[in-house]
């Protein structure tokens, strides 16, 4: 990426907008960033929409309609590097709960004229449709990680992203363990770190919004939680929120389904 400022595009699929808002939430860096990269397609922030190709595409949201399934192919074709941002793009998001249910029933529950609505039976991550170069986890992503990735790309080195579990970060920060001390269900041991162990820091259990860590031992955790009196349906719900179709959480959620 030498010569001209790299051309950045931001794309929205089914999502809440929170992950791309993280870019606008870089209040101290936004104007400097605007001088280093060209916002070539960022409709939430600019009406100056330029045609591709783009050097970097940030993709928010999951694929839930036939139209979006076609659109992500065009985005991929127009992008040198495609980075998915957040739980929807990397693991389907909360709307992927439909994957465990009947989308027609959903449509009828919400809309008086379900025939007006064009919707796929599932919400799927971007990587289920096109190759993805880099994934940022979180519901929402952490803006510091987004800045790290953009800075690394501008300087041509690999981004340094936190590794390990929320549990490890939590212990390193010296927070009392909510699970051990208070018997509060916590997904910290099986969740990828990156949030700053926010929930345990506030005295609540981690709810897994960064998705499963690598080699997450979910069955051992479930056994422990069952020992504390957690019912099977409650266990399923615990794994089935914002990263419900991330493989490790999906499998564990199904295991406790009656």
């Amino acid at each position, binding site marked *: 990426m030498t010569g001209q400022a790299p051309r950045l595009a931001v794309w*929205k699929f*089914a*999502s*809440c*907008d*929170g*992950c*791309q*808002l*993280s870019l*606008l*939430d870089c*209040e*101290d860096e*936004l*104007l400097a960033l*605007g001088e280093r990269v060209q*916002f070539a397609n960022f*409709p*939430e*922030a*600019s*009406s*100056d*929409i330029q045609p591709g190709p783009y050097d970097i595409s940030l993709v928010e949201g999951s694929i*839930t*309609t036939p139209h*979006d399934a076609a659109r992500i192919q065009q985005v991929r074709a127009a992008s040198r590097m495609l980075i998915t941002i957040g739980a929807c793009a990397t693991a389907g998001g*909360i*709307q992927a*709960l*439909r994957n465990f*249910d009947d*989308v027609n*029933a*959903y*449509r009828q*529950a*919400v*809309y*008086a*004229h379900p025939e*007006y*609505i064009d*919707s796929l039976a599932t*919400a799927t991550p971007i990587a289920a449709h096109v190759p993805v170069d880099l994934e940022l986890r979180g*519901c*929402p992503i952490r803006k510091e990680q987004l800045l790290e990735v953009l800075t690394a790309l501008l300087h041509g080195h690999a981004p340094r992203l936190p590794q390990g579990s929320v549990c490890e970060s939590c212990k390193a920060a010296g927070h009392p363990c909510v699970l051990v001390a208070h018997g509060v269900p916590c997904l910290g041991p099986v969740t990828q770190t990156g*949030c700053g162990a*926010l*929930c345990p*820091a*506030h*005295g*609540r259990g981690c*709810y897994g*919004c960064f998705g499963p860590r690598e080699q997450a031992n979910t069955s051992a955790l479930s056994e422990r939680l069952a020992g504390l009196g957690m019912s099977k349906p409650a266990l399923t*719900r615990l794994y089935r*929120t*914002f990263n419900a179709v991330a493989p490790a959480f999906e499998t564990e959620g199904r295991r406790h389904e009656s």
Partner: protein
Amino acid sequence: MNPETRTLRVDYLARVEGEGALHLEIEGGRVTRAELAIFEPPRYFEALLRGRDFHEAPDITARICGICPVAYMMSACQAMEDACGVALPPAIQDLRRVLYCGEWIESHGLHVHLLHLPDFLGFPDAVQMARVHPEAVRRGLRLKKLGNALVEAVGGRAIHPVNVRLGGFYRAPPLETLQGLIPELAWAIEAAEETIRFVADLDFPDFEVDYEFIALVHPDEYPMNAGRLTSSRGGDWPVSDFPAVLTETHVSHSTALQSRRPDGTPVLMGPLARYALNRERLTPRARVAAAAAGLGTVCRNPYQAIVVRAVEILLACEEALRLIKGYAPFEPAALAVMPRAGEGHGATEAPRGTLYHHYRIAADGMIDSARIVPPTAVNQARIEADLVALAQANLDLADDRLRALCEQAIRSYDPCISCATHFLKLDVVRHP
């Protein structure tokens, strides 16, 4: 092409939250149709909430909107607390108001300076505008950052806070965390006044509508978390009457449901409505600033919503400062909320207007049904009616000018399409 008959379209509205478009049809010199199309894909929150635990509603519904998650959390909490018969002590209510102030400052700060102002000054975005108006953009970014800092201090995270629960909070924030924001709030009060003066002098298109406004009204405060649903045409109702005051219909060009009065009248919610119905409960300083900005007792020009938003930034900064100065950490941080079979209603003032939640829950706390009416779904019908009138009054403009005027008008309502379900598309068809 006969200039009297044309179609104009904007396929993807920029600088709005979510995916939408506008379609305008003009036949024989008369605007026959204006559709604010919302094509953001549906995410079926009301369906996926069924069978979830009532404690999960605030965290799940927050994910409807990354710009106003606090509004969703507050309306959800209020509805569940209503269902379970829990009334909160003042300390918890005050802290929720601080949290809400943070969201107003963040959301309005973003909209005023980064999304709406570029229209008036002739730029495609804030980054390019900053090359000519660096002070205004930097002031906006700093205000927005303060809003986020408030949400983070109380809620633990700026987007999708983690510290909110039914009955209160997981933890009352440490005293020094909130007090640490006092100097910046003192700066922000003056900065907000500067922004009010700046936007008051903008050139506003001459366009007024005789709106029926709907907003919460509370006897003691400018409304955020509490109040009665009130109409500018008379009438006020408990929040539980919301479904009778505004009825929902589903139109073919939208994945959002539209709400109107039972007689079909489209209404306006949001800053203009709150201001018209609550001006006397602004802080004295905000009232003075509003008057100096030429707002009068009612503002009927949607383009001037940018001024009202700026006044609400000032109000929110002053309120946050007042409440933080009186803050002392409290225990317990939340009241216990025990489930019981029944239903509950909640309505709070999201930055864009009144956000209504209704739930039925079972005795074990499982959610049986959920109904959520976001303000953009209510405003959508009103926006369409305004666009018809606006286009009709400006038919002499060339297509690109008319399109720009309509787009700017749409942005002035700050539609939240992810909330309403989606994205705006503007189309102008002039038939030959």
